């Protein structure tokens, strides 16, 4: 929060919500407003969305670093599951009507098994799993049931639990869309980035993930590199730009395998590296019983944990001498999984902007609420909402970023769009990432950069050929730059001005 007015926004928002709460006191919507206030202090909620078999649960496990999510098609994968930081490992079932109820949570073979008891999956609103985890302190992860394929169940799409019902807060603040490798002309291609469940989602708070990256191209050992290339192509697609802020490749199974790799797994893989190449030819052969150096049960375990592609990659790494022990192999698998980039994107682009995203969501919810259940003070409240939306520069930035991505605002040059988006904080809201400077750049460089950028946009905005779009973008960005300058310690600026005035005198 480096721009001006950042202190004011949360305070103004809380004041507004208090007024709204007073206006709705005693009405059925009172709970909604109360929930909005509570929500401001909670971690960011990130939903993981995607079709069946897109690898959602695997990614979730990899992000948490534990096998918490059920990965096979049991009852539980049909219910929305929340994973929160909590004081102890426990799980709750929230029926659609009625109070939440604690349910049994067991660890069996390093997997988590939830017992619904007498409850039926279709009667549940959600399951909440609490675990003490540093990784969940700033994020709450929401696992959604996979949606079947197009046209098969358009009517059956009743999974509305995460939907924005008019007048209610959106459940998720941000969304990760998982998709498998599809051709850009595929019907399912855009669909993957666009889920009915998340209507409050804009390109600013959504990221696309090319999942199961290790299986691209038939599971070659360079699959992950190819996946990176494909993701880069997706990012260039203007249709994708309008839906998500970026597309990253991720191989959830590799990450999970890396996280759970034990020394004896490494030893087994090392032994297998010396075996005949034909053993790795197919899953059947690998799991088969004939004379391989490692016990068949261990091989089957490896296959289940990392997939044939993971085994192939590990063996290739060991053979090439790139990894020497279990630790190095785990790191290498994790590095290649792309999980670190996903986590970085989550923390830098969602968690950092968390307050802002929540503020925006809260304001829009209030707007909807005012429309859906009018109250006498409605017009005054609406004006206040408008005031905050228009006044808080961060929200103005967010909106402009959104408009640039969706093409509502069109600049003449793609390079200009790129520049504007970065300056608006697409890649991170810190001054250095906005100005495209290295993370360790000194303050002087930041100031100089901000000043140069300010002048550049001033010139662009005042240019006689500038159209309305350029003028709007330039006006917002000038204020952004001023904010950046203001945030870095000011003393240098005044002497400069003094110097200039004195020399002019």
């Amino acid at each position, binding site marked *: 929060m480096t721009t001006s007015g950042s202190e004011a926004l949360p305070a103004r928002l809380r004041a507004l919500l208090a007024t709204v709460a007073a206006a709705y006191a005693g009405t059925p919507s009172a709970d909604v407003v109360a929930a909005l206030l509570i929500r401001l202090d909670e971690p960011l909620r990130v939903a993981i969305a995607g079709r*069946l*078999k897109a690898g959602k649960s695997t990614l979730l496990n990899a992000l948490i670093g534990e096998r918490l999510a059920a990965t096979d098609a049991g009852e539980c994968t049909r219910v929305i599951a929340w994973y929160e930081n909590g004081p102890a490992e426990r799980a709750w079932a929230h029926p659609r009507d009625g109070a939440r109820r604690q349910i049994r949570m067991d660890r069996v073979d390093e997997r988590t098994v939830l017992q619904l008891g007498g409850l039926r999956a279709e009667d549940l609103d959600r399951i909440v799993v609490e675990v003490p985890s540093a990784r969940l302190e700033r994020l709450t992860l929401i696992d959604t049931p996979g949606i*079947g*394929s*197009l*046209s*098969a*169940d*358009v009517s059956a799409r009743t999974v509305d639990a995460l939907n924005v019902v*008019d007048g209610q807060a959106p459940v998720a603040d941000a969304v990760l869309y998982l998709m498998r*490798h*599809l*051709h*850009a*002309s*595929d*019907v*399912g*291609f*855009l*669909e993957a980035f*666009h889920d*009915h469940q998340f*209507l409050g989602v*804009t*390109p600013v708070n959504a990221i696309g993930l090319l999942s*199961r990256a290790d*299986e*691209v*191209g*038939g599971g*070659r050992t360079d*699959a992950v590199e*190819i996946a990176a*290339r*494909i993701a880069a*192509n997706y990012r260039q697609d203007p249709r994708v730009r*309008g*839906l998500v802020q970026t597309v990253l490749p991720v191989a959830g199974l590799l990450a999970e395998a890396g996280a759970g790799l034990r020394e004896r797994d490494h030893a087994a893989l090392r032994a297998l590296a010396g075996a005949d190449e*034909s053993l790795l*030819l*197919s*899953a*059947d052969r690998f*799991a088969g019983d004939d004379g391989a150096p490692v016990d068949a049960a261990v091989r089957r375990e490896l*296959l*289940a944990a990392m997939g*044939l*592609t993971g085994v192939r990659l590990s063996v290739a790494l060991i053979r090439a001498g790139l990894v020497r022990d279990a630790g190095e192999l785990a790191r290498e698998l994790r590095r290649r999984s792309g999980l670190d980039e996903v986590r970085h994107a989550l923390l830098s682009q969602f968690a950092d902007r968390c307050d802002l995203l929540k503020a925006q969501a809260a304001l*829009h919810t209030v*707007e*909807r609420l005012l*429309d*859906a259940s009018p109250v006498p003070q409605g017009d005054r409240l609406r004006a206040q909402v408008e005031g905050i*939306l228009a006044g808080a520069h961060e929200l103005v930035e967010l*909106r402009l970023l*959104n408009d640039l991505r*969706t*093409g*509502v605002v069109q600049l003449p040059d793609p390079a200009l769009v790129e520049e504007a988006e970065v300056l608006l904080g697409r890649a991170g809201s810190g001054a250095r990432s906005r100005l495209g400077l290295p993370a360790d750049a000194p303050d002087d460089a930041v100031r100089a950069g901000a000043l140069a950028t300010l002048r550049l946009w001033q010139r662009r905005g005042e240019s006689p050929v500038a159209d309305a779009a350029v003028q709007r973008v330039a006006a917002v960005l000038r204020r952004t730059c001023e904010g950046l300058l203001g945030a870095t310690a000011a003393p240098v600026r005044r002497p400069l001005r003094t110097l200039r005035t004195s020399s002019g005198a």
Partner: protein
Amino acid sequence: MPNAQDAETARVLALVDEAVHEAQGRRRDDLATRLVAERRRVLRGSCAVLVVGEFNKGKSSLVNALLNARVCATDADVATAVPTVVRFGEQLTVASGGADDAARSPVDPADTEALQTRDDRSAPAGAEVVEVAVPRELLRDGLVLVDTPGMGGGLASAHAARALRALAGADAVVFVTDASQELTAPEVELLRRVAGLCRRVLCVLTKLDLYPEWRRIRDLDEAHLRTAGLRLPVQPLSSALRHHGLRTGDRRAVTDSGYPRLAAFLRGTVAATGRQGLAAAAAAAHSALSQLVAELATARAALTDPARQREQLEALRDAQHRAEELRGGGSRWLQLLNDRIGDLTSTVDFDLAMRIRAVRKEAFDRLETADPRREWVELEPWLHERVNAALADHLRLLRDQADEVADEVAGRFGEDAWRLRAHADIVRVTDQREAAPDEIGLAALAASRASRVELGIAAVRGGSTGAVLSHAVGLLVVAVASVPLAPVVFPTAALLGGLFARTTYRAARTAQLRALRAEAERTISLHLDEVEMRARRDTRDSLRRIHQHLRDVFAGHATELQASVHRNLETLAHTVREDQQGRQERLQRADAELTRLRALAGRAEALLGELLGTGPEAAR
């Protein structure tokens, strides 16, 4: 199976050769020419197998692994964008160009992959087809494999229309899915249409090497297919195992790869289509020989019984008259053909209009009731799906009805030709005792069918209309490459996000929303108009070709019959003028020749019966 097939082919070819020899000996060059053409068709017979499926399921890898040659570009990143036709050649050659055979020019094999994978959105109209010839035994008997661009989303894909058109003429289809997940609903729907348009379908499950759970996926897939009413086996495949097996001589790997089964399916397809071609050739030989026998029998009858010459002449003149009628513009079969094609034109026009109208109505209803925020994103794929389903059904109607027309016309022609033959065959007319059934042949068959068989148009159904719709690979590719329907772009899609980002659906249900809806309606209407126009043009074009083809085929037969009658008349007149001495000599010669020809015709009949008796397609 292939050996039996080869032996059959050899027998038919030998028979045709002998018949050509006889025809030339009796200076019936018209018959000889037709037989030579028939012979060429047997040798050059082609059997088109389409490889279809969604993007990235391993279609190109399948073709490569099957042939153990890198003929199709396979890359994890870029997809096949241009259909690749793979056929036999003594050495590797590559050609590319238009859909038309003649419009293709050779290219350097090194450039093949760039041609196959060109991005169809960025590149302008370049090569529509890449044709690769490779020296592979599997292809030697005329098998032609067509690797198609992936249909993402099944029928909802904008590409689906052209692929479905190609399907109507394919001899078999290999539907490709992979073991990473079970069949999706769009895949099943696509398979259902495929099975409706093509009789031989094999569903293969690729990448079995990569997924330990492939058996479970296969069972699930088979269950899905059963639920959809499709009795199709699912054949698991692994190209990695196949390549490994071939490289190292590991026979277990080759067996496990599943490819031998795929090859068996393809050979079976070649055999089945080849059998159809053989039956047609045998029927042509039989027909020609019967005509020669009739001619000789006429001459012999004139020699043995000159007293009845007047009677015979009259019969033949009558036959000549009938033959002229059969060939002329007023013939019954031609009238029937013209009438039926006329009827069919209006039937299919109406059918198309109704189908498009239904789609339009459904689309407008959807627009009216749908929440733009939720459902408009899906309108485009939905529209493609509906349009493609409608066009597939329309195409099927066209094909079935065209088959019926061909059947009917053949029946009518057969009746008249039968009567004509009865008249021309003066042996039969004048002397019932000598009316040996073997000269007419296949007496056991129903009259109309027998006549058709005798005329060498046994396989008229599927043989002629199918051929016209796309049986020949040249035509097939025309179908693959045409119908690039313009994608629908709703002008509103991008705006919706911005429009509804800050307001509710209810608040936006205003003039702005009405304007958007009107705009979307207009877009849909324009698209459907375009679809209807192109589909109508295509359908009419197909009908025109079917019409012309049937007319040519039957007019050809009529000409041949007329020539036969004319020859008989000549023979008769010639015989009458000869003296007693020469007559006796000629009678002996004719008897000897007749015995030989009858034996030959008997062989042709036996062979034909064999081919038709066991060939399910040809016997229909």
